[in-house]
């Protein structure tokens, strides 16, 4: 078999025995090493430590030494006092971070006035998705694929740049489909012409005490970078400067109204975007 995913190896390290994964890992030096690393993480987690993690930084006079050695203090003073030339300032402080660059909630919930062009196919996809709710993700993927191949003829269908089948991670949700389209309808404002929209065809998700949030991740099994796109919506505009190669995985999480902006860790759907074509 191919190398098991990090997730499968983690399951093995946790004692969830899978014959195939175990046999592969036993015979493969790379996976054996990976498994050993995971066991080391487990050992590190379980190791009793009398002290909690240090809550405070090292003494401030040590920082002053570092700043002096690297000449940081000086340039900071110049920046503050003498208003040094802009060229001196390292980096752009007002660079939007990925999180602040996320579309504002208004955009996410009501991206464009619905036009027949964007609304009609979306509804039909939706109906198909509902009809096959109990079927395997593959069936939904094929159905949605067929719609894309046979667009409504009266209006041009926006070009689909990439698609993903979102696999259910929790017990209840059904598979869903994500597609990335160029917003190229005539009504769009000129500067929005190149904007990418992430469209979701999701059968109704179970109600719960919170809400669902849409994310982009860097990796399906082992996400280390994540970007919130706000509360789940059928259509979400993506930040214009977003590097989709860095965030190719679509994820839907169940979130509580707890004011915590972090991912809850409770994902219900996830899938990797692949170029359409």
């Amino acid at each position: 078999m191919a190398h098991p995913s990090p997730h499968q190896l983690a399951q093995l390290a946790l004692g969830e025995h899978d014959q195939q994964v175990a046999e592969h890992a036993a015979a493969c030096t790379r996976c054996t090493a990976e498994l050993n690393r995971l066991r080391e993480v487990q050992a590190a987690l379980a190791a009793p430590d009398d002290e909690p993690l240090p809550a405070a930084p090292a003494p401030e006079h040590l920082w002053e030494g570092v700043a002096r050695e690297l000449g940081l203090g000086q340039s900071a003073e110049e920046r503050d006092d003498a208003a040094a030339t802009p060229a001196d300032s390292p980096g752009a402080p007002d660079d939007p971070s990925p999180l602040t660059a996320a579309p504002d909630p208004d955009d996410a919930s009501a991206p464009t006035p619905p036009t027949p062009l964007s609304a009609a196919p979306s509804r039909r996809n939706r109906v198909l998705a509902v009809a096959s709710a109990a079927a395997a993700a593959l069936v939904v993927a094929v159905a949605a694929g067929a719609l894309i191949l046979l667009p409504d003829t009266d209006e041009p269908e926006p070009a689909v740049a990439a698609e993903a089948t979102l696999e259910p991670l929790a017990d209840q949700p059904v598979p869903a489909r994500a597609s990335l389209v160029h917003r190229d309808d005539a009504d769009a404002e000129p500067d929005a012409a190149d904007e990418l929209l992430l469209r979701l065809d999701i059968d109704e998700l179970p109600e719960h005490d919170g809400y669902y949030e849409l994310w982009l991740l860097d990796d399906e099994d082992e996400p280390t970078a994540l970007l919130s796109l706000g509360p789940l919506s059928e259509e979400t505009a993506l930040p214009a400067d977003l590097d989709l190669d860095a965030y190719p995985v679509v994820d839907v999480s169940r979130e509580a109204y707890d004011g915590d902006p972090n991912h809850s860790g409770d994902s219900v759907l996830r899938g990797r975007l692949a170029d359409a074509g």
Partner: protein
Amino acid sequence: MFAPDSLARDLDGQFRAGDEDALRAAWEHWSGLVHRLCRRSLSAADADDVTQQVFIEAWRKRDRYDPSRGPLPAWLLGIARLRVLDQLRRPRAEPVGTDIAGGSGERATADDVDALADRLLVADALARLPDTQRRVLELAYHQDLGHRDIAGQLGLPVGTVKSHLARGLARLRVGLELSRGASEPASAGPAGTG
């Protein structure tokens, strides 16, 4: 005190790009961690020196830091580990006081330093996991609870608990090589992989 995960990811890139504010932020978040590693293995004066060296070196060699291989604390602890070991290899007249060797005045060994670096890295990463995932791992490893008990305590299905455990574990593992010195930052030659 610990940066939320997503915030820390931004910081990694900004540090790599040479943003001095990111260096200061890295100091605020992780100098305590680095200092702890040094302090447990070295004398107080050496621990202070090495902590400074670590941040100076991490900054000067930031073009060798690849955020995709692990978060900033892994880069910092990786350098700290090497510098602590350098210090321990130096011939010394009197033994240094160490915590990890049991406070008996014996020197910390490379294994002690590695194990502590692992623990600090994993504990730091754990603190930055999403709440539910963190709670599940804490109950499993700090309280020794089984899947079913964790599920009961958090009101989650057992399957979700298992999935959190596997995902959490895989996530905590990120950066372990980076901190293990698979990339010896000081030399371009072949590096010991620990």
